């Protein structure tokens, strides 16, 4: 396994009176795609939001690229090199595709060559460049959300359930995009419930349940072990197969 880019140690997160993360230990190796699996309500989204500083850990430590980001502000975490694609995509509906990408490119405007590379797997974004993002289809919005995260090179991408509600054809585009990003050794932490989507993409995998990591290892091992899949993912796995 490569050296860790992101490391969570005993992370607890409270939201109001609810104790959501109950001691999460997670390592995201540099240059790999790590998949975070688990049923609804297991704490996957909370884990991503805690990494991003949108909710702060009440206990534990988060190390990113050797720096402690446990109490850092969200904007500082983003500037440190983490891009975030939330579950609801978080695109700005009143802004055009171009304006969404201009905002995401903090260092001046988007680089032309980088944009052409993005248009290679998301051609719809080029077609609807000056279209208001709110009028795009669900799949095109997801493409925009991911494009926004990669419009400039980042050290780590956090992506929350990108296939949710998308048509199979769109999911194929996303698989191609993630393969390309993997080939460029981009580190990705991908939250998913769709095991079929991630089984061929993931290098390592962690499974969450009740706010804890209950399994960690290589994706290839989980993908080949149906008994372990049944044990860890239960009926939610069958529903996706």
């Amino acid at each position: 396994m490569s050296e860790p880019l992101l490391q969570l140690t005993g992370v607890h997160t409270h939201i109001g009176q609810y104790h959501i993360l109950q001691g999460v230990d997670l390592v995201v190796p540099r240059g790999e795609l790590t998949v975070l699996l688990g049923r609804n309500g297991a704490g996957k989204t909370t884990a991503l939001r805690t990494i991003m500083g949108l909710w702060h850990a009440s206990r534990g430590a988060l190390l990113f690229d050797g720096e402690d980001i446990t109490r850092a502000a969200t904007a500082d975490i983003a500037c440190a090199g983490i891009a975030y694609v939330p579950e609801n995509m978080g695109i700005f509906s009143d802004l055009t595709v171009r304006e969404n990408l201009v905002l995401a490119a903090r260092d001046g405007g988007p680089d032309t060559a980088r944009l052409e590379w993005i248009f290679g797997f998301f051609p719809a974004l080029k077609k609807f460049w000056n279209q208001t993002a709110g009028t795009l289809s669900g799949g095109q919005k997801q493409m925009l959300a991911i494009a926004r995260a990669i419009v400039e090179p980042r050290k780590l991408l956090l992506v929350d359930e990108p296939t949710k509600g998308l048509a199979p054809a769109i999911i194929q585009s996303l698989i191609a995009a993630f393969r390309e990003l993997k080939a460029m050794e981009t580190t990705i932490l991908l939250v998913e419930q769709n095991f079929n989507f991630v089984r061929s993409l993931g290098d390592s995998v962690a499974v969450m349940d009740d706010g804890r990591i209950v399994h960690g290892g290589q994706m290839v091992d989980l993908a080949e072990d149906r008994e372990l899949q049944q044990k860890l993912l239960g009926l939610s796995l069958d529903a996706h197969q």
Partner: protein
Amino acid sequence: MTTTVTTPPPDGELPRLRLDKAPLLVLPILALLALPLIGSFPTWVTLTVAGLAMGMMIFIMASGLTLVFGLMDVLNFGHGAFVSVGAFTATLVLLPMQGWMQADSVLMNLTALGLAIALAMLVTGLLGWAFERIVVMPVYGQHLKQILITMGGMIVAEQMIHVVWGPDQIPLPLPASFRGALLIGDAAIEKYRLIAVAVGLMVFVSMFLVLNRTKIGLLIRAGVENGEMVEALGYRIRRLFVGVFVAGSALAGLGGVLWGLYKETLTAAMGSDIMVLVFIVIIIGGLGSVGGCFIGALLVALVANYTGFLAPKIALVSNILLMVAVLLWRPQGLYPVAKR
């Protein structure tokens, strides 16, 4: 308001983006409906220009408030304090420069007025910065406390005006060049109202350009829709908010100077008095929408002027009735802002 499309999508793939024209059409329809009721064309012209001038001044006062609400979900009931303080601050320049104000030179009048406006905007901008840090910051996310503490802040500001300028009304005559009316046919149009329309249009165009042509503007528009995501992209929304709060306060100060000259009398409560109209405007415009605020301000002012002439007894409630009618038609306001 929405953005125009420069590259149309292929047929059948996406709906063509269109500017929502219905709220824009309400204004000319209202004006045309009023014409036969008023009966006299010159009177209608006078009332319409008066309504537009009043609307522009309300827009200047309300535009900052609607952005503050949209960006940080802050209900600032103390916004009227900036209107009053702006107007009273202007007297620090205008009263000592009465000679310049009453001279028959447009240049001297404009110089005195320009200095007064600059000082008023500077002071209200600084006051806005302090108000945000001391009064608003401790109550982010707590609407009830925001209402109570910002109203309290406005009362304190009004009392401070009494302390500094005394309890009496202060007369504020118009500059000599801006007094009187232009006669166009049989219609008399006050010069100052034309100036108020021009200033209001300049503010609106400037805001439109900043919001649509600059990165700061993009950030403000994005922040109004989803502030959390703006942070996640690496921008400090709090700094943006403080900037918008200061700019909004300075604009309220500008509005206060214009409103004070329009009324030709200043009272400490002039800001709180106008806040009812300001809130009606930002509600019917769509909270957080500058375009909606602009149309809403013109609509409120035209209705106030027409009903004041046609049925003075219902003039007092005309804006409440207008708000009810608009919200029945569009519950989120004329130009609702998409929220996460």
